[in-house]
């Protein structure tokens, strides 16, 4: 049934465009919403993996080799939620029917690509879906045909293609060593490989590619530009799911299920993670553009996920996956907030804003919740995932890294307090006296995301036992 999550978006693009294009124009948005809702419900209410025998029979002849475990399930959930909110934000931002129709079509392609990445278990199919996602995101970044957006998209293309070339080189070498491209065969071959040096080289360049795609600190060049220059709804998707699925999920999946841990790999992950956590937070402190600060904050939070993955323990992995989920939710929420502020006031420069909390109560409140969750204040969801990661680092005897990770939380709090003070608190500027709270689409998505953040924090014991610890069911093939 899960292959239908890839196929239905593709079919809907065809159906929307081919026969009745003019008639279908209005319905594109609702198709998008419906598909994301179907995805959320399919994940939440069919943990055993049987939605209905009818669809299963219908799609069985098209079956790609897919697998599903709790990690995939959590990613599918994130993708559904974030696409739902992004579609609402886009509906609010653009009233032009034609442009909205085009946007929703690309969004559906992106959905198919993201679901594909999460579901495949073959390293070459992984590459195919990575490229589908990447191409859709290039188009989406440049969607408004603005000068900055083109510039950001070009930077992203160059780095993404280089990452792809590295990844393909790795695939080629693995094909030579293992004779096949499925995760299971590669994993089995790497355990008993005679060509140790070649295998290590392949693993190293694959890691580099995943780091570039995920925008981790030494490889982050394209990320702040792409996040800040793209249209508001696209920033939500990019920060919420695209880099997380393309970079971080791939990293977790490949390291955990295919390559396996070795001391050198652990060290690389620890160093890269720590660099991202600290330097991302320091760079965020110096920004005055709302979205650019969030982008650097995103780099810093991805560092935590990499640190959790580096421990290699059950606890660390559960923390990493939970932080991945939380980060998708609260960073999308913050980007929706920035979109609301930008659409109301017309600027993203935080020095020109002040005291918006009085005029935009929902935006102000939800952004405080998201910031506190991101900074790791109990009982919000971000606290629990950071706690899991730091405890796992400590138990894995990486004391120095645990201390740095804990101290970097203070930096996170520092830049978010600075953001809140400059945008939402203080005295309202006179030229902003006329602004109103943003529209329904914004309010809906902000409320939903904020409720999820609070709910995941309060219901943490339940989530830990039912969703996160079963992450250990990730199998080695």
């Amino acid at each position, binding site marked *: 049934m899960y292959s239908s999550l890839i196929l239905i978006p593709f079919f809907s693009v065809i159906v929307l465009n081919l026969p009745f294009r003019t008639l279908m124009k209005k319905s594109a948005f609702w198709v998008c919403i419906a598909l994301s809702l179907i995805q959320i419900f399919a994940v939440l209410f069919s943990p055993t993996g049987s939605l209905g025998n009818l669809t299963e029979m219908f799609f069985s002849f098209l079956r790609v080799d897919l697998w599903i475990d709790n990690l995939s399930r959590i990613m599918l959930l994130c993708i559904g939620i974030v696409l739902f909110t992004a579609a609402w934000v886009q509906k609010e931002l653009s009233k032009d029917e034609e442009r909205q129709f085009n946007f929703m079509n690309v969004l559906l392609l992106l959905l198919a690509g993201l679901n594909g990445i999460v579901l495949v278990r073959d390293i*070459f199919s992984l590459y*195919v879906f990575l*490229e589908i996602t*990447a*191409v859709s995101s*290039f*188009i989406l970044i*440049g969607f408004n*045909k603005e*000068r*900055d957006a*083109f*510039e*950001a*998209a*070009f*930077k992203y*293309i*160059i780095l993404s*293609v*280089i990452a*792809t*070339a590295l990844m*393909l*080189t790795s*695939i*080629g*070498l693995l*094909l*030579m*060593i*293992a*004779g*096949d*491209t499925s995760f299971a065969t590669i994993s089995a071959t790497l355990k008993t490989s005679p060509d140790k040096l070649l295998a290590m080289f392949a693993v190293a360049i694959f890691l580099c590619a995943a780091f570039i795609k995920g925008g981790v600190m030494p490889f982050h060049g394209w990320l*702040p*530009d792409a996040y*800040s*220059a793209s249209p508001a709804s696209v920033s939500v998707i990019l920060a919420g799911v695209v880099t997380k699925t393309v970079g971080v999920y791939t990293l977790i999946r490949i390291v955990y299920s295919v390559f396996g841990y070795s001391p050198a790999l652990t060290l690389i992950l620890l160093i890269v993670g720590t660099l991202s956590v600290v330097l991302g937070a320091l760079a965020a402190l*110096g*920004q005055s553009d709302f979205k*650019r600060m969030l982008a650097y904050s995103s780099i810093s939070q991805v560092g935590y996920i990499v640190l959790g993955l580096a421990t290699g323990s059950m606890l660390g992995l559960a923390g990493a996956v939970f932080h991945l989920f939380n980060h998708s939710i609260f960073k999308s929420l913050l980007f929706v907030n920035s979109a609301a502020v930008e659409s109301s006031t017309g600027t993203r420069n935080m020095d020109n804003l002040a005291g918006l909390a009085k005029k935009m109560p929902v935006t102000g409140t939800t952004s405080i919740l998201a910031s506190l969750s991101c900074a790791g204040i109990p009982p919000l969801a971000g606290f629990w995932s950071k706690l899991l990661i730091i405890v796992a680092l400590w138990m894995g005897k990486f004391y120095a890294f645990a201390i740095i990770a804990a101290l970097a939380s203070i930096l996170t709090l520092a830049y978010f307090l600075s953001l809140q003070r400059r945008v939402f608190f203080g005295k309202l500027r006179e030229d902003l006296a006329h602004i109103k709270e943003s529209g329904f689409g914004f309010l809906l998505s902000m409320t939903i995301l904020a409720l999820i953040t609070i709910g995941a924090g309060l219901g943490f014991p339940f989530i830990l036992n039912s969703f996160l610890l079963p992450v250990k069911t990730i199998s080695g093939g």
Partner: protein
Amino acid sequence: MSGEITHIFWSFGLFIVMLFVIGLYCVLMTYNLVRALIGLEILIKGVTLLIIVAGYVSGHIALAQSLVITLIVIEVVVMTVAVGIVFGIRHYNESLDTRAIEKLKG
């Protein structure tokens, strides 16, 4: 690996490395947007050759061929979008010089 296959691997390996170096040099040294894309193409061509050789050496040439055909199709799609973006940049800058792209920093 038998003698002949080792020989093939290393002689093709030389070409693959050369294509890689030429492609990377082109991307890093040029100030022209289109030339940067050409450099990327050369880079990907090196990888394509590597996959073919990998398939031959490991005895899975059919698998490698299907992978390479998929790869070529996808790469063309990526390059089409990239050229579209370059068109957009040229519309604003009236030139293809990368040094004119400097608005996003810091």
